[in-house]
């Protein structure tokens, strides 16, 4: 049984007004426990709207969302419970910080769960560790931190609830390359330590090609393509049409193929290309 599943999910914003807008239409989606899933798609394709249904923040216009086989809107209590089990990190989460210290801010979620003080403390320290924050930073005001550190603090605020499913909306947007790699590394650490399921919305094709098990591609509120990175990135043309691009290595391999080298179609990591080229050289002697 999939851990999280949607059935014919539709979402229409401002239905019945001149501003009506279909953001998600008829999406059937499932994710297994422990999977690392990437969601890609052009701006405005409905990714953010879609993921806000997975923890019950948005109510579907029609269709349903199931967590462990139970409809999450079955009762008000269950919808609230799901929010703690399915953690959602919004885009630019640093703008939601509000407490006087980083520690207090990370503690907001666990406190809302009604945990004891000792337990809250334990979770905050653990989450700060996962997010790569130093203990000295916990006593600072969140507004003294640098942009990258604020981002970590905000991510820690969700991790502190120990969600079984962690959803992140473009967690690396606007960070420098080093900050990006670190955050992706932190997410992977959390996944391993807690055997968590990760769903990551991203624009960074290089990153997604390295880490995820499966990619879901959104196009105008629908799932246009779904599969392993190898399957998705072999559709270079389709990706181009949708205003996305495959990883650079894939494009290089594509060009080499056009120039006559007999390369495989599913190259999306630099190591693949290296191995392929090595093999070709050996074959030629």
């Amino acid at each position, binding site marked *: 049984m999939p851990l999280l599943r949607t059935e014919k999910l539709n979402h229409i914003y401002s239905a019945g*007004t001149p501003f009506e807008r279909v953001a998600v239409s008829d999406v059937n989606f499932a994710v297994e426990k422990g999977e690392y899933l990437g969601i890609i798609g052009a701006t405005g394709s409905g990714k953010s709207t879609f993921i806000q249904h997975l923890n019950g923040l948005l109510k579907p216009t029609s269709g349903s969302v199931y967590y462990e086989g139970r409809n999450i809107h079955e009762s008000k209590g269950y919808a609230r419970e799901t929010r703690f089990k399915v953690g959602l990190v919004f885009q630019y989460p640093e703008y939601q910080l509000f407490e006087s210290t980083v520690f207090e801010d990370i503690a907001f979620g666990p406190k809302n769960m009604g945990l004891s003080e000792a337990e809250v403390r334990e979770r905050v320290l653990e989450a700060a560790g996962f997010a790569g924050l130093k203990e000295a930073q916990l006593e600072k005001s969140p507004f003294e931190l640098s942009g990258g550190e604020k981002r970590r603090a905000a991510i820690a605020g969700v991790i502190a609830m120990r969600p079984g499913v962690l959803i992140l909306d473009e967690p690396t947007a606007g960070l420098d390359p080093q900050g990006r790699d670190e955050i992706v590394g932190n997410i992977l650490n959390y996944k391993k330590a807690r055997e968590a399921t990760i769903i990551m919305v991203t624009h960074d094709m290089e990153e997604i090609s390295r880490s995820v098990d499966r990619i879901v591609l959104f196009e105008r509120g629908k799932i246009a393509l779904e599969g392993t990175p190898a399957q998705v990135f072999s559709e270079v043309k389709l990706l181009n049409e949708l205003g996305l691009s495959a990883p650079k290595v894939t494009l290089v391999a594509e060009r080499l193929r056009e120039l006559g080298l007999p390369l495989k179609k599913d190259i999306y990591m630099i190591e693949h290309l290296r191995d392929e080229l090595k093999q070709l050289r050996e074959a030629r002697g």
Partner: protein
Amino acid sequence: MLKDITLGQFFPGNTVVHRLDPRMKLVLTLIYITALFLAQGLFGYALMLGVLITCLALSRISPKTVLRGLRPVLFIILVTVILNVFFITGETILFEYRFIVITQEGLLTAAFMASRLLMLIVGTFLLTYTTSPIALTDGLEQMLSPLKKIRLPIHELAMMMSIALRFIPTLIEETDKIMSAQKARGADFDSGGLIKRAKAILPLIIPLFISAFRRADELATAMESRCYHGGEGRTRMKVLKSAPRDYMALLFGAVVIATVVLLRAAG
């Protein structure tokens, strides 16, 4: 959702009403309001209702939108009705129970008051629904510019107003976003007593204020780096010009108000 509030919102379109000069629309709105207060008796009200419905139809604003916009003011209208029904004294008593007395005069006054209020609100909706905030403040600024002679800072006031109007949707969107983000961490904005609710709103208010200040700062920098230095010597990209249709509209307004006055004199 917060976004669905339509009070004071602009619905772009390309109808005659949309294209009228904003200055003329302001004048016409004033004429409409005056006429509404001068109107008397069934005929006067029927005429005003006819005018309103014609304008609504011309502007292609759907009745649904108007009704949705009325929702927040229903309470005020209800209070007006109740006050009028119970406190207007008259001769023809319809219902009496201890200190509660309902008279025919009371009912009639209540009905007239309610319809006058409703027509007043819907009429002003029509102005904001069909005029972009920028056009509206531009119109206002030009109409009030003679007051600059007595040193009233008309340009600055208009600029403040257009900035405020420009940022209302942004702030609403931001409020929605921060609310969702805090809800994702288990914040509960809609249950509990007064104190609990007031406390629950802190995680929303603080980030909202911080971001509003940040935006104000950024906007000030952006304006300065484009050499904004107040209204003096500033020219406009879109100069307001009156077209024949504006004068037609004015004529229409004059006819309406004249009819209302005549009806009043006759009745």
